[in-house]
C-alpha cells in the first residue's frame, strides 16, 4: 500500500540551525560555516564548530566549485517519488573549501560522471520556499 504522500518528494523543513542556510540558497548562495577560532569549515549547519567547540561561526558563501569524490547512479528509485527520475547520479562532492556534501547531477548524462570530475553549483528552486543545491559538470 502506497499512500498519496509517498509520491511527493521529501522537502527539507528548516530549523533554527539551518534557517539561514536554506534562506541563502533561495538567494543563490551556499553558506558554509567558518570557525573564527580554528578556521575549520563545515557544511552541516550547527551552533558550534565540530573541531574545537567554538560558537564563533561565520557564514561565508562557497565558491561553488568542487570535485566528485564518489558517486552512484541510482537505477532503482528509493520509493515512488523518485521513480520518474531514474537513472540519476547521486554525487558526493568535495567542495573547494574542504567539506563534502551529498547532491545530484543535473544538466548532463549520469553515465558521464567520473571520479574527480570538476563540478559547479547550480540552484534548483523546487518550491516557493526551498532551493536545492545541485551540481553540473564544470
Amino acid at each position, binding site marked *: *500500500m502506497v499512500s498519496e504522500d509517498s509520491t511527493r518528494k521529501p522537502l527539507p523543513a528548516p530549523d533554527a540551525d539551518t534557517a539561514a542556510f536554506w534562506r541563502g540558497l533561495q538567494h543563490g548562495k551556499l553558506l558554509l560555516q567558518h570557525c573564527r577560532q580554528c578556521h575549520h569549515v563545515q*557544511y552541516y549547519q550547527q551552533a558550534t564548530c565540530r573541531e574545537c567547540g567554538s560558537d564563533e561561526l561565520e557564514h561565508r558563501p562557497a565558491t561553488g566549485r568542487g570535485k566528485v569524490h564518489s558517486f552512484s547512479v541510482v537505477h532503482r528509485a528509493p520509493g515512488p*517519488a523518485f521513480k520518474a527520475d531514474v537513472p540519476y547520479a547521486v554525487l*558526493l562532492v568535495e567542495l573547494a573549501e574542504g567539506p563534502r556534501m551529498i547532491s545530484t547531477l543535473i544538466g548532463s548524462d549520469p553515465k558521464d560522471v567520473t571520479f574527480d570530475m570538476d563540478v559547479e553549483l547550480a540552484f534548483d528552486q523546487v518550491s516557493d520556499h526551498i532551493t536545492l543545491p545541485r551540481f553540473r559538470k564544470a
Partner: protein
Amino acid sequence: MSDTSLRGKVAVIGIGLSAVGKVPGRSPLSLAAEAARNALADAGLQQSEVDGVLSSHAFASPFHRFSVAFSEYFGIRPTFSNTLQVSGATAATMFSVGAAAIHGGLAKVVLVVAADSLMTGLTPDLALRSLTESRDQQYEMPFGVPVANTFAMTAYRHMKEFGTTPEQLAEVAVVHRRHAARTPGAQQTTPITTADVLNSPMVTTPYRKLDCSLISDGGAAFVLTSAEHAQALGIEKPVYILGCGECYTHEHIFLMPSLTTTGAVESSQRAYAMAGYRPTDMNVAGIYDCFTGTVIMMLEDLGFCRKGEGGPFVADGQMSYGGRIPSNTHGGLLSFAHSGMPGSLFHFHEVIAQLRGQCGERQVEGAHLGLVHSLGAGFATNATTILGTRGAL
C-alpha cells in the same frame, strides 16, 4: 587483563531460529517468540528463568519498545530490558550489552531476541522507504539517496583507489550462494556464476541486483548467562564471549572520514585486544554482507588481508573452505536471509553452531575461535564480537 574486562565472563548457552525466508502471515513478535522458544529449549531452560531481554527494532511491528512488547507476548516479566538501535550493528551490541549486564549483576539470564518480516509484512516499496527515511531529512532525503547508495559510493571509491573489479564483487555473491546451498532453510540456494551477477539488473552503480542482500522474514534468539552459571547448569558446549568492540565514526555519509577505511578497524582491534587473539587466530567468521563490496572492505578492516587486497583475497578463494578465513558459511545476508536488524543474528547463529561443531557438511573442522562483525547505516556503525570454545579461554 583488568578486572572489568568481559573476556570469558559470559557464555552463550542457547541458540534458536524462527522459520526464515518467506514466512507470510507471521508478525515479528510471533517469529521472535518461536526463535526464543527454540533457544530456551536448546539451553534446557524454562522461560521463567529469563530475567533480561534485549531486542532490536522491527520495521514491520508498531512497537517502539520491541523488547517490552516481546516480554508481554512471551509471558515473562524481566527486570532488565532494552531495545537497542545502532542499525545493522545492533546485533553485536546486544551481545556486548547483554554480557556487560550479566557481568555487572543487572541480570542473570539474558535473552537476546529479534525478528522482523520485511518480505511479507511490508511491501517492497515500504521496506525501501523505511530505510530511506532513516536518512537525514534536510541533507540527504531531498536528493533521493537510498541507503544502498551510500554503501555503493564506498564500494565505487574502493574500486577507484585499489582497482577492485566488478568480477571480484560478483565472486562474493557466488561464494555466498555456494555456502547457502548447503544450509537447510536458506532463502536462495540456486547456484549462480559471476556472469549471472554481472548480467543482473543495475540497482545503484556499481551494485547490481545480485550484489545486494535479500529481503526476508525471520528471527533469531540467544540465551546468555555467566560462565559460572553455565557451568552450574552443566551446559555441554558453552560458547564464550571473549572480546567486544564498537566504533561510531559519523552519521552522514558526507562526514565519513574515509570512504574506504571504516570504524571496523577500531571496533575489531578493541575486540582482538580484549580477547587476546589476532585475526590469524580466527577459524571462522560472520561478516555483515549487506552488499558484496561491504564484505571485501570488511575482510581488510577486520585484519584478514591488507587494505586494498580484499578483491584478490576473495577471488583467490580465501573467504571459503580451505581459505584463510571461511566466512558466512550459512550464506549470509546475500543468500541465507536478511530480515533487517535481526539479519546479523544469523551470522551469530552460524558462528556459534560452528564453534559447537554442529554444522554437518558445512562444518569448519576444529573451529574454536570465531569473529562476528555487524555494521550499519553506510558504515556509520560498527561492532565486533569474538567468540570461543572452552578451549579458547
